[in-house]
């Protein structure tokens, strides 16, 4: 087990290094000089060449690429993600504001999708061929096809504009005003969850149908265990590995989703921070944000991989 975890950690570490090189190069190989862009943004005209050089030195852009990369990594390891070009704020503090918001929506959506999807998947598998199964399967097929930004606007139209039940945009921390916060997050969380629910439901259904054929399930029924025990202890437990993998992968898909959902509902989370930074060419934010997000995704997948060992003791020996 220790060897397995160690190998996985090493693997994850290598991937993070490659990711950081990608991110670094992506920003440096861009057309356009960030310094000129900054001046353009700040509406500074008639710049002396010396000032330009000074700014370049200030941003560290005058050194060779490899030195710039190592400096950047060194700063990150010391907790300094750089400064936003236009907001003149430390990126770590910008992320500190937006990350909890996305995490709030993401964790809620992950929890809700897992609960709803596993329940729906079990029902659909156990009642295979019934109208309930057809309904669940059709809904999942529609769920993976619907553009979530469109779904968000549809919900806004129905529950915000038409019925006036829910606020149509904004975000309030649950610690400030729990009621308002809950009302505000309902629609975004529903939008974020739809795709995950569809995928996890499908996986649960097919994985249970696979397991239920096994002899040990028949034995469990034959020895007179009740339905709940057979399903939870024997069937579900053995179907969990593919489901867990998929739930792990949803972290990445929820971050993608939050880019769209936060734009629709005007929520100041990580997704919208990235969109704003990209469109305003605030490269340090993009760079820091992407690196953090990618590292987060890798760590989450690592945790899922390690959890296999706990879900299925046989994996220890591989």
């Amino acid at each position: 087990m220790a060897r397995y975890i160690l190998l996985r950690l090493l693997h994850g570490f290598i991937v993070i290094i490659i990711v950081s090189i990608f991110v670094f190069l992506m920003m440096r190989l861009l057309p356009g000089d960030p310094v000129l862009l900054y001046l353009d943004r700040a509406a500074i005209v008639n710049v002396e060449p010396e000032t330009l050089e000074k700014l370049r030195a200030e941003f560290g852009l005058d050194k060779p690429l490899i030195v710039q990369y190592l400096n950047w990594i060194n700063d990150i390891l010391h907790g300094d993600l750089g400064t936003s070009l236009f907001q003149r704020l430390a990126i770590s503090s910008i992320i500190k504001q937006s990350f909890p918001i996305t995490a709030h929506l993401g964790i809620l959506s992950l929890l809700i999708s897992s609960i709803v999807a596993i329940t729906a998947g079990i029902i659909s598998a156990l009642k295979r061929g019934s109208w309930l199964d057809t309904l669940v399967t059709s809904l999942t097929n529609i769920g993976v096809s619907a553009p979530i930004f469109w779904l968000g606007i549809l919900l806004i139209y129905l529950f915000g504009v038409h019925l006036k039940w829910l606020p149509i945009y904004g975000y309030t921390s649950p610690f400030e005003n729990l009621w308002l916060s809950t009302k505000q997050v309902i629609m975004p969380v529903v939008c974020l969850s739809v795709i995950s629910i569809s995928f996890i439901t499908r996986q649960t259904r097919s994985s249970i149908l696979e397991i239920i054929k096994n002899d040990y399930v028949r034995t469990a029924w034959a020895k007179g265990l009740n339905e709940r025990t057979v399903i939870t202890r024997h069937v579900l437990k053995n179907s969990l590995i593919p489901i867990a993998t998929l739930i792990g992968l949803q972290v990445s898909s929820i971050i993608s989703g939050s880019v769209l959902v936060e734009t629709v509902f005007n929520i100041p989370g990580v997704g919208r921070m990235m969109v704003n930074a990209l469109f305003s060419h605030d490269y340090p934010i993009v760079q820091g944000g992407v690196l953090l997000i990618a590292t987060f995704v890798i760590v989450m997948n690592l945790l899922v991989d390690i959890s296999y060992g706990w879900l299925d003791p046989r994996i220890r020996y591989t």
Partner: protein
Amino acid sequence: MTIKHEIEMKYEETPPRISETRRFLKVFFSRKVVVFGSIVILAMILTAIFAPLIAPYEPERIDMANRLLQPNEEHWLGTDFHGRDTLSRVIFGSRVSLLIGIVAVSFGAALGMGLGLTAGYIGGYINAIIMRLMDALMAFPGLLLTLIIATMLGSGLRNVIIALSIGMVPMFARLTRGQVISLIENDYILAGRAMGASSLRIMLVHLLPNCFPVLIVAVTMMLGMTILAEAGLSFLGAGVPPPTPAWGAMVSDGYRDLSTNPALSLAPGVAVMLLVFAFNMVGDGLRDALDPRLRGIL
């Protein structure tokens, strides 16, 4: 007993042979949703090709006298902020979605297949390098990666296609590599080597065609996902620049006039959903017809 009868008896002993194509078509069209999906895809392709003939108005013609009209007999879905006919724009929008979807998936699949084939066949360091690079690309949430590439390259049809293609390379590379690794143990590969076939020949003539069933299903599913992603990019404003009608951008533009005419925003979304649904269903049908064991993998 006549001779003819004797022959008939023999036929009954062995199960009737159906040709592979007929079996494929029979399984493929056995589900109604798959038939529905095929019809939708065909109809959308025809709509895209013949858009100028079908659309009642020019999609980019601005008519300020008739802006923000409610759906009526002349404008079935009403008009937008600039007085452009929404139905015509939805019809023309199919061009952008299908074009980008098909071209981006072709590039992404070709590149991914090439990398996966190389990694799986050669193995060793090459495999490790290619696959770690793919892992690194996979660590970026899909839409974020394409959004970053698209905004950095600047908006435009070509750059959207590049961004979407890069985003799907890791998926195709992993899939192809997995197939190659399972196929490479087969005797016909050994036979090919024994006969002195070059590595390139083994890869292209023996391995690649045997990966096709899986890849065809993946390509169909990816067409749906890519059209969805393109709509997302264009919704955020990183797609094909205006005034070219694109479904995602139309959803976003119509949002501000949601209370006046919800069809402005909702109709193009329905078009996206319909097309993506169709590709997903046809992908499902292809999978069941080509290789039902793929259920759960794809």
